[in-house]
């Protein structure tokens, strides 16, 4: 399962006002963090619809991170609390679908916390690396059996004898 060559694909939704700037800051301050995160900037963690997280997983992400302003510091007042409630709702559902806890994570990082954000990212990437690839779309592939069986019916019907009136 987990191996050294596996590079997790992580999608990170970062709030424009804090975590995205923290990532920027980490960049200008030359703080190194894992390159596994594909960052998507959102205007607020409250903008992260559960659909975004599910879509990332359905398209093959191994983990999803949401980062927003610290509680009490959201530029849209209460929206990061909403993000938090959605996050727990999603986690509860994803657990029931068989997803490990460590594949989605919500963290807080202010615009000044480049170092902290880098650490959050590194830690998350390591945790997901330990879990191995997720490859969610493989869950509904029915291997060759399915197509083969459908074609077999057509063939069988062609070959079977016509019942004469």
């Amino acid at each position: 399962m987990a191996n050294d060559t596996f590079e997790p694909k992580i999608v990170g939704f970062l709030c424009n006002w804090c975590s995205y700037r923290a990532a920027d800051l980490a960049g200008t301050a030359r703080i190194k963090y894992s390159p596994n995160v594909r960052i998507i900037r959102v205007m607020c963690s409250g903008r992260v619809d559960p659909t975004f997280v599910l879509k990332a997983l359905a398209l093959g992400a191994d983990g999803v991170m949401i980062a927003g302003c610290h509680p009490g510091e959201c530029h849209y007042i209460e929206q990061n609390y909403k993000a938090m409630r959605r996050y727990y709702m999603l986690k509860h559902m994803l657990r029931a679908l068989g997803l490990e806890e460590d594949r989605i994570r919500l963290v807080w990082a202010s615009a000044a916390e480049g170092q902290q954000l880098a650490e959050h990212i590194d830690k998350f990437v390591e945790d997901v690396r330990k879990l191995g690839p997720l490859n969610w779309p493989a869950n509904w592939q029915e291997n060759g059996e399915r197509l083969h069986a459908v074609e077999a019916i057509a063939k069988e019907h062609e070959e079977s004898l016509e019942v004469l009136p």
Partner: protein
Amino acid sequence: MSETQGKGKLALYWAASCGGCEIAVLAIDEKILEVAKHFDIVFWPCATDGKVRDVEKMEDGSIDVCLFNGGIRTSEQEYMARLLRRKSKVLVAFGSCATEGCIPGLANLSNREEIFETVYEETPSTENPQHIVPQHETEVPEGKLYLPVFYDTVFTLDQVVPVDYYLPGCPPEAERIWDAIVAILEGKLPPKGSVIGANTTVCDECPRKRTEKKIKKFYRTWEIIPDEETCLLEQGIICCGVATRAGCGARCPRVNSPCIGCYGPNTDVIDYGARLMAALASVIDSNDPQEIEKIIQDGIPDPVGTFYRFSLAHSLLRRKRKLIAAAAGGK
């Protein structure tokens, strides 16, 4: 299609369904005679005699409208879906099962092996000392016999063949069925790929009083006797009306029962459960992580069944994770 152009050809078929949608067609009552005036029913195994062989012999595209109910869970159903797609000009996913998997789609929380084990071994009324379960191929002296392959995953009709229109609901309401038939007869159909129906939510049809939704606890229906006038969600009962397409006239909340979502997602909603989760998250009255977790875990013991009761098969993640795929590290 006017009468002068002659009669159209209509087919109805069922796959992984409960049969309720077949009954629903008859719920249009005497209007069925109107349907018979405009259409010859060329294939409807539930009500008329007709063989697959007959359908195979029809010209491609010769059926004007096919109303297809049920999801796809076996190779035989997939074969019929493909056959009827080829033979039909307009293919309608009829009802929740064909549209989004519905209750049969909740089997996506299991796989074939688990289902067979329950059905052919574990149920109390089953005695099966030889552990006989259906096989795809069986050798008999005369040759090989085949049974359809039972899939691990239930698919919706549009995950298997292109679908022209959708008629949601478990089952669709008689009035909505009639609306759709009229739209087809008059050629006044929405763009291909649309739902024939409303673009609002059940809440918009619901007469209950709404003020502010802020709750500290979700109640299951048997834990509380709701007052008859206030919005059920405001009383802490999970009512899916907020996320569900209108069309039924808010049938359930009108009789003091929460909407459980049978009309599926509204237009432009990609994932029904995601929409519902977002809506429910915003009514929780707490900013404390521990309290939030507790409210959710105590109040929603079956999250998949609550958020995706009708739409698991059509959701973004479609099913519960199959352990085999995980153990193999994907691929």
